[in-house]
């Protein structure tokens, strides 16, 4: 029987790792993710998890050790955030290029400078071109479930890509919520054993992993990472369906909320989706045709689902806790690309919000609504808007 309990997202991630039974874990402490390696250390110390836990001297070595272990053919897991993920950056490309299905739990946190330990998505969003799949959890249950789902998708022969699961610093990592821990036997059946045919470092069948490719071969190697990302779109749907069948919780790449007759749709990710859905309810009560949508899967980018969503809205307001300087948010860029060649498309308005742990309030969302309304009525509006700025100290 699944156990219903309460825990922080960090604990949920550690539980997910325990249930997935990785053989090697390598991790380094960093706020707000530190509780994950702490909890895993306990599991290993108590004999509840039979894994090698390598207490590395940096995140660069954490991911490098995971690459080594995964290349030797075992399931591997790590957790990090912020500067730690940034330090891994170089090796993230390598893990994807070597097609190693490593899973990272990311406690989404801002990047320096100035140093700040609180929530936004600049850390994982800035890894969006590494070839890794990216999932974002709205709550602690999703953090647990998406880690299991990520292992299953990542290890699929058609995919063989690493994956990171983002959940918001403190808002989720340190906040206790009800979580259902699935049965070990059901998880075992769901995940199966990882037995790769492309990476094993086995003396009985020596192969060379991590080669150099000249211009005659490099593009094809990178193209296979593109292809794997494309394949992952279908595999993710299959795995979501299987997960629902086994565990009873439904996941979609884009989860829509009251979008059917909506004129303005607020799109976001992570825990902010909860606030936004509440805000939509609040607007609906006032007769405003608003809806919400949340991306559970950010990479591979759910282009088809975005196009379907776009058909339902006149204005899409993108609420994002990240920024590309001089351009706008990543979602704004990705939505623009998904829709640019569509005949009919909604107006996109971008909102940079909640950076470095700044609370997102209904008052902030009112501001988002006002600008979105301007766009809806054909008035002039700014494409990229920083919401909740304390202009008085600028």
């Amino acid at each position: 029987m699944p156990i219903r309990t309460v825990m922080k997202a960090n604990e949920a991630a550690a539980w997910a790792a325990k249930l997935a039974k990785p053989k090697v874990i390598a991790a380094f402490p960093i706020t707000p993710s530190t509780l994950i390696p702490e909890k895993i250390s306990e599991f290993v110390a108590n004999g509840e998890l039979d894994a090698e836990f390598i207490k590395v001297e940096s995140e660069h070595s954490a991911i490098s050790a995971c690459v080594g272990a995964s290349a030797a053919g075992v399931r591997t897991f790590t957790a990090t955030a912020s500067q730690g993920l940034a330090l891994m950056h170089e090796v993230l490309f390598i893990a994807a290029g070597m097609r190693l299905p490593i899973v990272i739990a990311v406690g989404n946190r801002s990047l320096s400078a100035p140093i700040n330990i609180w929530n936004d998505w600049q850390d994982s969003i800035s890894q969006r071109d590494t070839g890794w799949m990216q999932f974002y959890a709205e709550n602690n249950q999703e953090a647990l479930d998406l880690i299991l789902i990520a292992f299953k998708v990542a290890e699929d022969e058609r995919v063989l890509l690493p994956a990171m699961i983002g959940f918001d610093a403190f808002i989720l990592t340190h906040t206790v919520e009800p979580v259902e821990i699935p049965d070990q036997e059901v998880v075992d059946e769901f995940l199966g054993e990882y037995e790769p045919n492309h990476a094993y470092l086995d003396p009985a069948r020596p192969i060379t992993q991590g080669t150099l490719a000249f211009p005659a071969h490099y593009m094809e190697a990178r193209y296979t990472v593109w292809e794997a990302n494309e394949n992952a779109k279908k595999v993710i749907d299959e795995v979501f369906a299987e997960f629902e069948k086994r565990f009873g919780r439904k996941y979609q790449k884009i989860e829509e909320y009251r979008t059917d007759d909506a004129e303005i749709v607020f799109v976001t990710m992570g825990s902010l989706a909860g606030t936004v859905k509440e805000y939509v309810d609040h607007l609906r009560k006032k007769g405003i045709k608003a809806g919400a949508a949340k991306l559970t899967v950010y990479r591979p980018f759910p282009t088809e689902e975005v196009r379907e969503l776009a058909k339902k809205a006149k204005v899409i307001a993108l609420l994002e806790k990240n920024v590309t300087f001089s351009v706008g948010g990543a979602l704004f860029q990705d939505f623009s690309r998904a829709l640019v060649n569509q005949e009919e498309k909604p107006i996109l308005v971008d909102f940079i919000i909640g950076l470095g742990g700044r609370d997102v309030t209904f008052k902030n969302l009112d501001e988002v609504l006002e600008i979105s309304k301007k766009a809806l009525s054909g008035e002039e509006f700014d494409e990229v808007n920083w919401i909740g700025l304390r202009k008085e100290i600028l």
Partner: protein
Amino acid sequence: MAESPFKADIERVKREYSEKMTPGAVARIPGSSVVNKTGSWRVFMPEFNRDKCVRCYLCYIYCPEPAIYLDEENYPVFDYDYCKGCGICANECPTDAIVMVRETK
């Protein structure tokens, strides 16, 4: 004449060689570099005088390629497919059984 210890590799790579991209750009055939005949780099070639050889194995030990293997009687055999002509074998040979001569081709 003894066989190259890489004969099986040469045959396998001929049989199985493929440019087809593998997941992770893995090179699947061990020792497949043997298809690259680096002997073409050579300017000077080692000439071996068996009569002078005392089978000290130094040339065999030092050759960086390796382009020297041993025959049934443990005399060195020079594999000109791969020898780049560095001349370390000749320089280290204690009995001058190896001398470097200009490549004639």
